[in-house]
């Protein structure tokens, strides 16, 4: 399990993190969402040891992270970086060796991974000769070659077409099933909602919501009541809480997070035909908008 506790980081006058905490269990996929500059990359860099926190601590399997433990982690930084002139297979194997594999281990892992990612035919080409999509695959291979104990990926889905998104999602899910905790950041909230077991929403250096996706969505005060009434009498909702919008087709929609739902239902029935009535959980997008606002 990976745990971060009360991380603080400041760059000069800018405060990047104000007490970020997160927890990712073995086999759990954790989606990290937040606006640009909210602190996602800084948090991931601290987890990977590229940056040191001003205060706070990162623990791996209950112990403060050591350099040796970190060598087992796999990382895809936000700014992609590869040796442009180095050949694909040599590059992947080199990173395997930097992560402590023997030459033979690195070679066989590289072969298997290139096969899995469809890079085998490009093994001898320099990275600069590859398309952007293939370079992205090499970048992923570099993060995966040593069979990491933890995966930290900064915006791994950005710039991928839908098919490549599915392929990457499958590779990550595979690692999760093998018991590896996976953290990735993304702006694509629908993707996070679809793939992740838990989610962390960060805004201005603070974790505003974190936990299993269902729990975050169901959290107290976030549910909203949605009532759709057809051809209601004008002014039917006067005195009821929430906002009313018209959908232009004779329907009116009332949304509220408070009030007596039974009283609202009774008022709606009196006003017209109730087509929909129910408590709904917000989507991650809604929670995110609310958090960032």
């Amino acid at each position, binding site marked *: 399990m990976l745990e971060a506790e009360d991380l603080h980081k400041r760059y000069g006058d800018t405060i990047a993190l104000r007490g970020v905490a997160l927890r990712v269990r073995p086999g759990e996929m954790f989606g990290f969402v937040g606006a640009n500059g909210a602190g996602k990359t800084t948090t991931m*860099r601290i987890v*990977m*040891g*590229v*940056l040191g926190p001003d205060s706070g601590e990162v623990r791996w399997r209950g112990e403060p992270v050591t*350099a040796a433990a*970190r*060598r087992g*982690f796999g*990382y895809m*930084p936000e*700014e*992609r*970086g*590869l*040796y*442009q*002139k*180095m050949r694909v297979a*040599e590059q992947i194997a*080199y*990173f395997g*060796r*930097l*992560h*402590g594999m023997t030459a033979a281990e690195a070679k066989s892992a590289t072969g298997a991974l290139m096969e899995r990612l469809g890079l085998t035919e490009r093994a001898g080409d320099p990275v600069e000769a590859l398309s952007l999509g293939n370079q992205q695959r090499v970048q992923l291979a*570099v993060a995966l070659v040593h069979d990491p104990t933890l995966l930290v990926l900064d915006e791994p889905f950005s710039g991928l077409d839908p098919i490549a998104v599915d392929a990457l999602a499958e590779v990550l899910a595979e690692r999760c099933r093998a018991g590896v905790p996976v953290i990735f950041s993304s702006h694509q909230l629908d993707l996070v909602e679809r793939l992740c077991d838990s989610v962390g929403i960060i805004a201005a250096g603070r974790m505003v919501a974190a936990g299993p996706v269902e729990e975050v969505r169901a959290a107290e005060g976030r549910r909203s009541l949605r009532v759709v009434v057809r051809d209601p009498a004008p002014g039917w909702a006067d005195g009821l809480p929430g906002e009313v919008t018209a959908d232009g087709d004779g329907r009116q929609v009332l949304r509220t997070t408070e009030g007596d739902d039974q009283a609202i239902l009774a008022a709606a029935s009196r006003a017209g035909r109730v087509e929909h009535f129910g408590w709904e959980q917000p989507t991650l997008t809604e929670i995110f908008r609310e958090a960032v606002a």
Partner: protein
Amino acid sequence: MNSTIANALLVARREISVRARTRGFLVGLALSALLVAALPVIPKLFGGPDSYAVGLVGARSAALEPAARALAPGEQITLTFTRLPDERAAHAAITAGDLDAAVVDDGRLLADGDPPQELGALLQGAHRAVQTEQRLRAAGLDPARVTEAMRVPPLTEVSVSTAGGDSGVRAGVAMLLVLTLFFLLISAVTQVAMGVVEEKGSRIVELLLTSIRPGELLGGKILGLGALGLLNLVVVIAAGLGSALATGLAGDLPDGMTGIVLGALAWFLLGYAFFSALAAALGSLVSRQEEVSSVLTPMTTLLTAAYLVAFYAVTEPAGTLARVLSLVPPFSSMVMPVRTAAADVPVWEVGVAALLMLLAVAVVLTAGARIYRSAVLRTGARLRLRDVLPAAR
């Protein structure tokens, strides 16, 4: 094995295998070896040949052969003699270029224009010796005593110069050393800076530093590129010495040549360690290859200054400037090997210079690694040392 060393070696191996495959490295290696190998040949091209074909016409001139052969080794020339039936044949052979000169019985030396100077002098000397001996015998002196008297030992040559007897050759060797050290140092050191910027600019350094420490990455890079620089130096020296042996110039090389070569290698390593640490620290301040040469200016200026002083030391190896700066780091890394090649230097001076240089290398490596560590992840605009040093403390 210690993991720090293992990691640095891993990085060094990558540097070597990637760089050694580039066309730039291979062409540079071949070109520098060829250039140095060509140098001992140049004096021959301008100095004319050192082997001559001489024709002899008539029985009396045949007596010249043993005398001329006896003198030839002292002048470092080889002679081949051909007997010719008459003067006409000698004419024809000289005109055809088969002979350089011919001696005809009645005491005439034939050549195409003036005979080559050293050949002419040698044949005249041989002729004089033969004639003198014959005339003394004709005057009735005891042939045995004549032979005895004719055996005069040559003057023993003694140099009073501090540079030793072979000052010209030593200066040549020293000059060659200055040029080689300067170009190899500046190219190897620039490679280090460019490598640092490549990793910083492509952000790959962020990935690298999750599995190895900055010191291991920098150390490995310096080690790998240094090994290639050393290889280049060894190839250049081997090419020069090989060519000197092949052309017969090796006999002129100064006595302590082995020491000079080993010293040059050691000083190259010290100079490389100093300047590469400086280059890495400066290189880590920028993120784009275009900025490398401008950020390296302080280092290249220092290296060029050392080069100029070393150049001056070739001509004045015992001058005060050369003596003082051959002790002061980093000048010593180029001036001292040149001084030792050009003249004899007291051992204590070499020792002091080496010790000071080692200290300077230790300081620069520590400070350079510190600057590198704090600057290498800060991509974007060029950093100033001021931005980096407080954070490094």
